[in-house]
């Protein structure tokens, strides 16, 4: 999944500037490069979906390059006004930028904590049952190291190919306006995650703690959990509940990856996905970039299902649309509006504030466990600045939200979870990877503010995470072990 960090600061700048000079609504985000964080587009690749791997889906979501909430790219007028106020806003920008970084730190940390806690307590996710995903058919318990390396390279190649194919399929589907297919796909994916994976998770937790539970109660619990989740994610729901559900399904997905990807394959896939993300977002012919540009041309919102959003989504009052403004109290279904638009009519009547964020969530189908389990979900989120160009706005920081692709969550958590599962240095390695990923995220957002163009959010964090994982596991761990043995302190 290509994750592009949104150019939050820039958006904020624009927003700041635009609010004071003119009260007319303008598409705030035009011309503002956005880095989008794509959720695990790669994640999707794993499971065997009907579409043949939704890894492409994962990549597709976030691959969009400069995203402008579905607004036409050219918007010179707001810029002129902004430039004068830009300097004044620098400090404000820094404060707002920091706030957005924290708004991303918290959910990413929560997701990682859930994954690590599960890995440490529920042994199911670290057991090797001999089952593999259909996308990684080569086993890693071979006789020679060379054979193992070869197998893992082949596995990673297959996975990344599936991801690329899925991304292209997604782009095709989007280009030819097969919105229903995409919507149905997303619906099915989240259905699978919310019901089936959570059932398995709950079952394993009960097994671990030796709790007895009858099927009727279990059915009621899972039913309620799943239905409320579907409602929150695809329709309306309280913001915190929706965020919680998104974090939970990201964690579930990451756990599935941790369980079913063999070790070397997993690390290779992480590395390759970051490279792919980089290419897909920054290259002019990258599929994700094409996707975003198409969305911009059509002035449409890209499917905002499965975007983690930190605030309520507002609707922009456009001069050429008759959609009314909504105030915060009404925005109970923040991103439902843009979602409903493509469903209701092939041509959306007004751009929602979610435009430009292209998120795809691809959940791979999961076969029953008679055969190899296939499950991957691609969800992408974009970090996106939500425009709220309404003058009677109470507070700046309340309007501006941050959106992050689910794929990011999934891969970050997968890295940290794998580190805590397989590293012999235990908690030190986990901590090191955690800090590395957070710093990577921070740097990505900083680069976004500097370069002001769409950047993938996966590469830097994953690169840091991988470097710190291997370095900590191999270099720091023996050192710290020896120090702890003698109780020396550094």
């Amino acid at each position: 999944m290509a994750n592009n960090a949104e150019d939050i600061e820039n958006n904020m700048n624009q927003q700041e500037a635009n609010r004071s000079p003119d009260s007319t609504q303008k598409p705030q985000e035009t011309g503002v490069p956005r880095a989008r964080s794509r959720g695990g587009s790669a994640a999707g690749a794993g499971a065997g979906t009907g579409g043949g791997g939704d890894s492409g889906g994962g990549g597709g979501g976030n691959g969009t390059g400069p995203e402008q909430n579905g607004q036409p790219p050219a918007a010179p007028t707001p810029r002129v006004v902004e430039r004068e106020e830009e300097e004044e806003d620098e400090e404000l920008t820094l404060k707002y930028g920091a706030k957005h970084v924290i708004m991303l730190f918290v959910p990413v940390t929560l997701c990682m904590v859930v994954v690590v806690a599960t890995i440490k307590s529920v042994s199911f996710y670290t057991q090797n049952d001999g089952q593999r995903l259909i996308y990684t058919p080569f086993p890693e318990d071979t006789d020679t190291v060379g054979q193992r390396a070869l197998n893992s390279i082949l596995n990673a190649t297959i996975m990344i190919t599936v991801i690329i194919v899925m991304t292209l399929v997604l782009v095709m589907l989007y280009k030819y306006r097969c919105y229903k297919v995409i919507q149905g796909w997303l619906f099915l994916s989240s259905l699978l995650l919310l019901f089936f994976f959570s059932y398995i998770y709950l079952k394993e937790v009960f097994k671990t703690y030796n709790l007895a539970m009858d099927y009727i109660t279990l059915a009621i619990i899972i039913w309620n959990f799943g239905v409320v989740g579907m409602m929150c994610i695809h329709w309306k729901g309280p913001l915190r509940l929706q965020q919680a559900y998104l974090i939970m399904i990201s964690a579930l997905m990451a756990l599935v990856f941790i369980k079913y990807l063999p070790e070397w394959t997993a690390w290779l896939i992480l590395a390759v996905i970051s490279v792919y993300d980089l290419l897909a977002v920054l290259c002019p012919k990258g599929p994700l970039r094409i996707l975003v540009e198409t969305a911009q041309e059509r002035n449409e919102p890209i499917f905002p299902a499965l975007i983690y959003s930190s605030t309520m989504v507002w609707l922009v009052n456009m001069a050429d649309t008759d959609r009314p403004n909504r105030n915060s109290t009404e925005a109970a279904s923040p991103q439902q509006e843009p979602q409903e638009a493509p469903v209701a009519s092939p041509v959306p009547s007004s751009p929602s504030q979610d435009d430009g964020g292209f998120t795809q969530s691809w959940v791979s189908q999961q076969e029953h466990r008679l055969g190899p389990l296939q499950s991957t979900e691609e969800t992408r989120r974009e970090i996106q600045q939500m425009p709220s160009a309404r003058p009677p706005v109470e507070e700046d920081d309340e309007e501006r939200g941050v959106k992050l692709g689910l794929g990011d969550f999934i891969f970050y958590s997968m890295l940290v979870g794998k580190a805590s599962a397989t590293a012999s240095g235990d908690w030190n390695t986990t901590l090191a990877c955690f800090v590395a990923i957070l710093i990577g995220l921070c740097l990505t957002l900083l680069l976004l503010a500097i370069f002001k163009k769409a950047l993938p959010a996966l590469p830097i964090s994953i690169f840091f995470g991988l470097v710190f994982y291997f370095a900590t596991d191999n270099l720091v761990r023996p050192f710290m072990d020896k120090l702890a043995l003698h109780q020396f302190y550094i």
Partner: protein
Amino acid sequence: MTAAVFFGCTFIAFGPAIALFLFTIAREPLRVIFLIAGAFFWLVSLLLSSLVWFISVQISNKESAAQQKGLLIFGVVLSVLLQETFRFAYYKLLKKANEGLLTLSQEETMPISIRQLAYVSGLGFGFMSGAFSVVNILADSAGPGTVGIHGDSQHYFLSSAFMTMAIILLHMFWGVVFFDACEKQRWWAVGAVVISHLLVSCLTFQNPEYVASLVPTYVILFLMGVWAFYSAGGSLRNLKLCLTCKDKDLLLANHRPR
């Protein structure tokens, strides 16, 4: 062992640090970011020193225990020096970033002052240092086992926890003094910080004679605390005003507008 030891040692080791974090840093996003960046810098310094130690171990005689211990001591000293170097590097980076921000924005006030940065970065260093020292020990303390069954000291967990708390607070004080000294170009103060860090680490070579290592460490902690207090602009008068709730600045600062 058991949960009591686990929770007790965790709170001893991290209690003051977490309290500081919650009350002074958690609400400000900028400070949180700089805290994590400080933790990252400490981590990088540890990585480098581990690399050097690892290489030296590989080329040494692995059989000789005395040599290994000597290499370990060398590793500790190198690690301390590298940590202080990275603290200086972080200081330089922050100065540059601050200056850059200042020139970009025509505001006169920076969003975060260098003193706050000193405090936050010191605490970041401390968090990471404490976490790496003690988290594995804490994880083990929750599980089954008997402390010191082979004749080692029975106070292993407790002393580790106390040492960790001292280290975390010391890092914070060192950060404040260090940055202040760099600001005022007082290189002797920088040297004093490095030497006191070395001293604290070398005191731990005496473990498991905990009295010999913990007591001087706490004395140094207290002295550094006083020094940091004065270099951060505190004075007896301020302290008195604060404690008797007569400090108007503090009261105003804590008053949050609705």
